[in-house]
C-alpha cells in the first residue's frame, strides 16, 4: 500500500516565502515537517573570481554588491583586510564614520527583518509600519552617503564622505524618532497574543545545538550564545564604545525577534556615542594602488552575523584571491534542523528568522582530489553536448520539444 502520509513539497527556488531563489525540499506528514533539505547554488554570481580580475578600487564596489542590505558590512570587511595587508593606518575619524554607517545599516536591516517577519506570519500591519519607519533610517543613510542602498562609503585608506555638524543633528533627530518607534514595536511584540503564539516555541535551536551547528549573529545570541565580533574581536573603534551583547534564552523565533529588537536599541545608543565622540581629523590617508604581497583575514559583525573576508595580495593592483564567508552560510546549516517537527505553517518564519541572504551565500567550491588525476574542465561546446546527451539518456529530447513549440507558436 502506498504511503499517503508523506507529501514532499518543494519550497523554492521560486516561492512567495523566499525573497531570493533557494530550494528547500520539505517532507510533510499531515502538516508536520518530518524532514527538510536545503539546496543552494541558484544565485552563484562568481563574485570571488570577478574580484581577482579587478583592481582593489573596483573591488570595493563589486564586493559591496554581494549583498544589497549589508553592503557596508561586506565592503568594510574587505577593505579592512586590504588595509591590513597594506599596513595603512586608517584615521580615527574614518573609523568612526565607518561605524556610524555600519550601525545605521544594522538598524535598517533589523527593521527590514521585523517587517518581513510580520509578513511571514500574516501580520502585514507590522510590515507596513516597520517599513514606514525604515524610511527614516534609509533617508539618514542617504544623507550620510548619498544613496539609500549601496552606500559606497569606503575607499582604501578611509571613507569618501565626511559627516558635518548639521548632518550629525539630523542623525540624532532621526535616531530619536526611531527609538520611540522601536519601543513601540517591542511593546507590540511582547503584548500581541497572535504574534507571541506564532513565534514562541517555533524553530527551536537549543544552546547546545547552537554551539554544535555553529550558528552566528542574532540566531546564536537568541540561543544564549553571547558571541559578537564587535566585542570578541573589536574592529574599527568598537572597543571605545559602550554597549552590551543582547542575548535571549528563548532559543526560538520569538527570542530572535527580541534579540533583534534589543540590538536596535543598542545601536541607537551606539550611534549617539559615535556622533558625540566623533574625533576631528582627516577622513582618509593616501593609499598605494599596488598592495604589497601578503594575506589577511577580516571579521565583521554584519547585521546577520559574522562576516569573514579573506584577501591575498601579490604586489599588483589586483588581489590574487578573495574569499567571502557570508553569515547566512553559517546559519543555513541550522535551518533544516530548525524545521524538523515544526508545522508547515511555521516554515516561512523559521527560514526568515535567520534573516537569510542567499545571494550573499552562494559560492562555488572546486575540490581537487589527489586521486582524481588531472583536472577535467568543460568548455561551452562540450557542456552543451553533455547536457543534450544527459537528457536524451533520460528520455527527454529538447530538440524535438523545441521544434514542437516552434510549430505551436507559428500556429498562433
Amino acid at each position, binding site marked *: 500500500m502506498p504511503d499517503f502520509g508523506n*507529501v*514532499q*513539497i*518543494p519550497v523554492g527556488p521560486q*516561492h*512567495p*516565502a523566499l525573497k531570493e531563489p533557494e530550494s528547500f525540499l520539505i517532507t*510533510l506528514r499531515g*502538516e508536520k515537517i518530518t524532514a527538510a533539505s536545503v539546496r543552494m547554488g541558484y544565485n552563484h554570481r562568481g563574485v570571488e573570481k570577478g574580484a581577482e580580475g579587478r583592481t582593489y578600487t573596483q573591488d570595493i564596489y563589486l564586493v559591496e554588491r554581494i549583498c544589497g542590505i549589508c553592503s557596508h558590512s561586506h565592503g568594510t570587511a574587505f577593505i579592512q583586510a586590504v588595509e591590513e595587508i597594506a599596513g595603512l593606518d586608517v584615521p580615527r575619524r574614518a573609523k568612526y564614520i565607518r561605524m556610524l554607517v555600519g550601525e545605521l545599516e544594522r538598524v535598517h536591516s533589523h527593521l527590514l527583518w521585523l517587517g518581513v517577519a*510580520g*509578513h*511571514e*506570519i*500574516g*501580520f*502585514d*500591519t*507590522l510590515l*507596513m*509600519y516597520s517599513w*514606514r519607519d525604515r524610511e527614516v533610517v534609509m533617508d539618514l543613510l542617504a544623507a550620510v552617503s548619498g544613496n539609500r542602498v549601496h552606500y559606497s562609503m569606503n575607499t582604501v585608506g578611509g571613507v569618501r564622505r565626511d559627516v558635518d555638524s548639521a548632518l550629525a543633528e539630523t542623525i540624532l533627530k532621526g535616531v530619536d524618532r526611531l527609538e520611540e518607534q522601536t519601543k513601540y514595536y517591542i511593546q507590540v511584540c511582547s503584548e*500581541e*497574543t*497572535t*504574534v507571541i*503564539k*506564532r513565534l514562541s516555541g517555533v524553530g527551536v535551536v537549543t544552546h547546545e545545538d547552537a554551539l554544535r551547528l555553529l550558528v552566528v549573529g542574532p540566531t546564536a545570541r537568541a540561543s544564549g550564545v553571547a558571541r559578537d565580533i564587535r566585542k570578541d574581536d573589536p574592529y574599527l573603534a568598537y572597543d571605545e564604545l559602550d554597549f552590551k551583547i543582547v542575548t535571549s534564552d528563548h532559543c526560538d523565533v520569538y527570542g530572535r525577534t527580541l534579540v533583534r529588537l534589543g540590538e536596535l536599541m543598542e545601536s541607537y545608543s551606539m550611534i549617539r556615542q559615535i556622533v558625540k565622540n566623533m574625533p576631528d581629523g582627516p577622513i582618509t590617508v593616501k593609499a598605494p594602488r599596488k598592495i604589497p604581497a601578503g594575506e589577511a583575514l577580516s571579521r565583521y559583525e554584519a547585521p546577520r552575523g559574522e562576516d569573514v573576508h579573506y584577501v591575498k595580495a601579490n604586489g599588483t593592483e589586483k588581489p590574487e584571491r578573495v574569499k567571502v564567508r557570508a553569515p547566512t552560510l553559517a546559519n543555513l546549516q541550522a535551518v533544516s534542523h530548525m524545521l524538523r517537527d515544526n*508545522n*508547515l*505553517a*511555521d*516554515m*516561512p518564519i523559521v527560514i526568515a528568522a535567520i534573516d537569510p541572504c542567499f545571494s550573499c551565500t552562494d559560492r562555488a567550491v572546486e575540490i581537487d582530489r589527489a586521486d582524481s588525476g588531472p583536472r577535467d574542465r568543460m568548455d561551452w561546446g562540450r557542456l552543451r553536448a553533455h547536457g543534450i546527451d544527459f537528457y536524451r539518456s533520460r528520455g527527454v529530447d529538447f530538440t524535438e520539444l523545441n521544434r514542437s513549440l516552434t510549430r505551436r507558436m507559428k500556429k498562433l
Partner: protein
Amino acid sequence: MGTALIQILVFPGLLFLAVAGLAGEFIDRRLYARFQNRMGPPWFQPLADFIKLLSKEELVPDGADRGLFRLMPVFALTAVVTAFFYIPLWGTSALHAFSGDAIVVLYLLTIPTFTYFLGGYTSKSVYALLGSARTLTQLYAYEVPLFLAVLGPCLLAGTWSLSELTLFFQARPWALAANAAGFVIALIALLGKLEKVPFDIPEAETEIVGGAFTEYSGRFLAWFRLSFDIEMITGASLLAAVFLPFGLGLGFAAGFGLYLVKILFLIALIALIRSLVARLRIDQMIGFCWKVLAPVAFLQVIVNLVLKGIFFS
C-alpha cells in the same frame, strides 16, 4: 417570470451583488490600507483586477478533471447569490421566504467552501492539495460555532425562518441584546468563511502559494474572487439580518440606506480585525474555535433557551 428574472439577474441579484461585492472589496482594502497608514487602491481597482483577470488566458492543469475544474467557480458564485435571496435585507421579508430558510442559507454558504476544496483538490498540485485540505479542516472548526451562534436568536424567536426572525426582533428590539456574544462569534466565524486574517490559513501565500487557487487563472480565478466578494456581502447581510434586525420598517429608501450602513459597519469590523492580528496556525485555529468559540456559542444557546422560557413562553 420577467420580474423574477430581473430580480435574479439585476436587482437585488447578480448585478447588484457584483457591484456591491466589488465596492465591498474596495472599502475593505482601502480601510485595511488606512489602518496601516497607507493610501490604498483607487476605487476602480477591484473592477480593474476583475476585468484584467477576465482577459487573461485560463489554464487547466494536466491531469485535472477539466469539467470539475471549470465548473467549481460557477458553483461557488451561484451558491452565494442564491443564499442572498433568502436573507431579509431592508424589509422584514426576504425576496423568497419559507419556514426553515435560515438552515438553507447556512448550508448554501457552505457550498462555496466545498467548491474551493474540490477545485483545489482536482488541480493536481501539492500546494492546492494542502490548501484544500486546510479549507476543509477549517470548515469543520468554524462551522459549528457559526451554526450555534445563529441558532441562538432562532431559538429566542422560536422560528427557523429568517423573515419571521426579523419580524420577531422588529417587535422587541431590546431582545437583541441577548445575542451580543453570538454576534461576536458569528463575526469571527465569518472571517474563517471568507478566509481572511487571522483565518486565511487555506491561502496563506507565504506558506502554500495560492492555496486551493494556486492553479486557477484567468476567468475561473475571476469568478472565484467575485464569489469571495459576494460571499462577504452575503455573509454580512446574514449577520445584519440575524443580529442587527432593527429599523426595518422604514420603507425602501431609508431602509436600503440603513442596510448599507450595517454592511459597511461589518466590513469595517472585518478590515479592522484582519489588520489587528497575525495569521493563526491551523492547530491554533481549531483549538480556538472548539475550545473558545464553540463553548461560548453553546452557552449563548442555553442562555437564550432560559430567556425564552422566562419571557417569551
